[in-house]
C-alpha cells in the first residue's frame, strides 16, 4: 500500500552572455558583463506564462479543493527565486500561498544549483546549502528536513555530509545500478551514514509523465489520469517517488498535449483507489523505517543514460572549466567582496557545464534542446573566455 510522494524541481539558470574578446565596450558591472539580462528575462517570462503560473495556480486550486489529502513538494533553486523576484513577483506570491496551505513541503539544495558538493573543500557546499535554507525561511517561513543535491547528485559521501548538515532525508535516483533487484518504492539507509534516509525516484513512473506523456511512439500513449492512477495503485512498497522537473507542465509538455487536464484529474482518479495516499518527503521519512541499505561509492544522478556526473564533467573541456572555477575559491574569498562572491557562485551553476556536453548518445539531443549555444564547443569558448576574464577581475580587486 504505497503512498504517492511528489516533488517538483523548479530551476532557472542565470544564462551567460555572449562574451566577445573584440567588444571594446564591456560593461564594468560584472553581472551585466557576464550574464544576458534580456535573455534571462525573456526565458523567465516565457516559462512563467507557460508553466509557473498556470501549473502553480492549478495545484493551489487542487490543494484548496482536497485539503490535506492532496500533498506535493518543491525544490526551488536560489537562482529561480532571485529571477522570479526580479521579473515576475506574482510567481513568488503563488508559492507563498502554496506554503501557507500546509500541504506543501519544500526541500533544500544548493542555492546556486552548483556542483560544489564535488569540490575538494566542502566549505562552499555547506555555505550554499545554508544560504538556500535561510532564503526559504525568510521567503516562505519554512524549514526543510530533506535535502536534494543538484541534479540529484548522490553518493555515500554526499549523504554523509547532508546528515552532518542536519538533514533526515535525501533524494536520489532509483536506478538499478544502485538497487539491483530491489524496488525504488522503499526507504533505504545509506552506507557509512547513521540515520539519514534515502528517497529514491521511481524513474519509470516519473518519466511516464515528464518524458513520455506526449510520445506517440509509446505503446501506452495517450496517458490518462485514470490509467496512471491505476498503475500507481497496483504498485507495491512504502512510497512511489515521482520526482520531475516542474517545467514538464506546460513547457516540456505543451499545454496542447493535455498535460494540465491530466494534472487536474490526477488527484481525483488517485482517490478512487482507497489505498493511495499523498505524502510529502517529510511525511515519508517520519512514517517509514528503512528496509535496506544502499551503497553508492561513485556519483549517481538523474541525468542522461549514464546517471552519473558525466553530463557535467564527462569531457576534458567541462573538467577544465570546473577545476578553474574551483581554483578561484581562495582568490575570490580573499577579495572579501560580496558581489564578486555572488558572481563566482552564479558561474558555478551546473547548467553552464551541461551545455558543454559532447556525449553522442540520444542524450545529446536533450543537451541540445536546453542549450543556448550552437555547439558544446561554442559553449566552451564562451564560458572559458568569461572565466578567464573573471579571473583577471578577481586578481585586480
Amino acid at each position, binding site marked *: 500500500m504505497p503512498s504517492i510522494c511528489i516533488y517538483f524541481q523548479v530551476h532557472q539558470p542565470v544564462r551567460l552572455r555572449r562574451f*566577445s*574578446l*573584440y567588444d571594446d565596450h564591456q560593461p564594468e558591472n560584472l553581472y551585466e558583463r557576464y550574464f544576458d539580462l534580456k535573455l534571462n528575462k525573456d526565458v523567465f517570462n516565457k516559462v512563467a506564462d507557460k508553466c509557473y503560473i498556470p501549473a502553480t495556480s492549478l495545484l493551489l486550486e487542487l490543494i484548496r479543493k482536497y485539503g490535506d489529502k492532496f500533498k506535493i513538494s518543491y525544490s526551488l533553486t536560489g537562482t529561480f527565486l532571485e529571477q522570479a523576484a526580479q521579473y515576475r513577483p506574482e510567481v513568488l506570491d503563488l508559492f507563498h500561498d502554496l506554503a501557507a496551505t500546509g500541504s506543501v513541503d519544500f526541500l533544500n539544495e544548493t542555492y546556486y544549483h552548483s556542483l560544489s558538493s564535488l569540490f575538494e573543500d566542502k566549505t562552499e557546499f555547506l555555505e550554499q546549502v545554508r544560504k538556500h535554507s535561510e532564503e526559504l525561511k525568510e521567503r516562505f517561513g519554512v524549514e526543510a528536513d530533506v535535502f536534494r543535491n543538484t541534479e540529484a547528485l548522490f553518493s555515500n559521501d554526499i549523504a554523509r555530509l547532508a546528515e552532518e548538515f542536519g538533514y533526515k532525508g535525501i533524494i536520489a535516483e532509483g536506478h538499478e545500478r544502485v538497487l539491483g533487484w530491489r524496488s525504488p518504492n522503499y526507504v533505504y539507509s545509506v552506507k557509512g551514514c547513521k540515520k539519514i534516509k534515502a528517497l529514491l525516484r521511481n524513474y519509470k513512473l516519473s518519466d511516464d509523465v515528464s518524458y513520455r506523456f506526449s510520445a506517440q511512439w509509446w505503446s501506452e500513449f495517450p496517458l490518462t489520469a485514470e490509467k496512471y492512477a491505476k498503475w500507481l495503485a497496483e504498485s507495491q512498497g512504502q512510497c512511489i517517488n515521482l520526482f520531475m522537473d516542474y517545467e514538464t507542465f506546460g513547457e516540456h509538455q505543451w499545454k496542447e498535449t493535455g498535460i494540465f487536464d491530466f494534472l487536474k484529474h490526477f488527484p481525483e482518479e488517485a482517490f478512487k483507489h482507497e489505498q493511495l495516499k499523498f505524502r510529502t518527503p517529510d511525511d515519508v521519512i517520519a512514517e517509514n523505517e528503512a528496509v535496506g541499505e544502499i551503497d553508492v561509492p561513485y556519483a549517481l544522478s538523474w541525468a542522461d543514460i549514464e546517471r552519473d556526473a558525466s553530463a557535467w564533467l564527462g*569531457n*576534458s*573541456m567541462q573538467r*577544465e572549466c570546473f577545476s578553474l572555477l574551483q581554483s578561484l575559491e581562495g582568490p575570490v574569498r580573499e577579495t572579501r567582496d560580496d558581489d564578486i562572491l555572488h558572481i563566482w557562485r552564479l558561474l558555478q551553476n551546473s547548467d553552464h557545464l551541461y551545455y558543454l556536453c*559532447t556525449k*553522442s548518445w540520444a542524450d*545529446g539531443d536533450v543537451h541540445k534542446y536546453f542549450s543556448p549555444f*550552437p*555547439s558544446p*564547443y*561554442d559553449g*566552451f*569558448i564562451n564560458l*572559458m*573566455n568569461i572565466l578567464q576574464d573573471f579571473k583577471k577581475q578577481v586578481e585586480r580587486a
Partner: protein
Amino acid sequence: MIGWEYPPFKTGGLAVHCYELTHALAAKGVKVDFYMPITDSGVSVSDRNIKIIQVAHAKFGAYVTRQAYGPEFFSDVHAFNNTAAERIAQHDKKERYDLIHHHDWMTALAAMKAKYLIDRPMVSTFHSIEFDRSGMWPNEYILSIEKQMAATADRIITVSKYMKGRLVEKLGADERKIRVVYNAIDAGDFKKHWDVSHGKERIVLFLGRLTEQKGPTQFLNAAKRVLEKERNVRFVMAGTGDMLGYLINLAIALGIGEKVTFIGYLPDEQKRYVYAKSDIYVMPSVSEPFGITALEAMASGTPVLVSKTSGAAEVTPHKLVIDFWDVNGMAEKMVALLRYKTLSETLGKEELRDALNLTWDKIADDTLRVYEEIARG
C-alpha cells in the same frame, strides 16, 4: 557512368571522385562502363567490373580558367557529348544498361540524349553549380544546361544539404528528387597532427584557390585581429590564384606582412604535411558545395573552422562554424583554439573520427541506395 576525367588525367577533384566511386561500386558487384573523352595520358583499370570507354578528343579539363570558355571549348564539349550518347545507345543493344549516371554539366548533354535514345533513368551528380564557380557572373549557357539537367534527371545527387538548397533556389530543381551523398577521402592515409613536430610558432592554415569565393580577404582581416591578442602565430596561405598579388599587398597594408606566409600550390605529399603541421585549418568560403580540404584537415586531426555556407560543415557535429563575413567571430574562434588546448585537442580527435567514418565504401552504399530507389520506380 559518364564523366569528364579519370586519373591520371585530372584537373580537379572530379577525377578522384569518379575513380573512387567506380571502384567502390565495382567492389559491390556493380558493373560500370565509364564514358570519358580521349586524353593524352591514357587510362587503364584492372577491375573486371569497370570498363573505361574513351570517345572524342578534349583538350580541356573540367574546371579550366574562365578565359578558356571560348568557341573551341564548347565545341569540344558538344562533340564529346554527342559521340558518347551514340556509343551508349549502340552498346546498350549488345548489353543492356540499367541506368545512366553522370557528373556535372559537362556531361549532361550526353546523359540527356542517351536517356532519350534508350529510355533509361538518369542520375545527375552536381559537384558544384555555375553560381559557385563564377560568383557574380555565371555563364548563361552553362546555367541553362544545368537547369535542363536538373529538370531532366530522375534523381539528383548533391554533395551536401547546403548544395541541395542551392539547387532548389538557383536552378529551380525539384526538392523531392534530390538525394545527398557526401564526398569521402581515404582518411587513414593522412599524416596526423600529433605525429609531426611543431615549432614554437603556432600555424593557422588557409588552403585553396586564391579567389574571392574562397574568402582569403576575410582570412587576412581575421588574422590581423588574432594578432592583436596572440603574437606567436603564423598565418599560412597555400594555393594560387588571381588574387595572389592583391593578397600580398593586403597583408602588408594590414601591417601583418611578416606574420603571413604564401607558399603557393602544394603537391599532395606536401599538402598532407602542411595539414598536420597546422594548428587550425580555416575554410572561410563564401559558398562551397562541399569543401574536400576541410575533410582532409579533419583527417589530419587538425581542428577546422568552416563557413556555414559549406557542405563540409554538415559531416560532423563536432565543429566550430563561422560566418564568412564575420571577421571578429572568426578571429575569436581562432584565438580560442590557440589558447585552449583542451578545445583544439577534443575537436581534432572527434573530427578525425567522423572523417574516418566517411569512406568511399559508405559513399558507394548511399549511391547504390539511390539506384535501387529508381529501380523500384
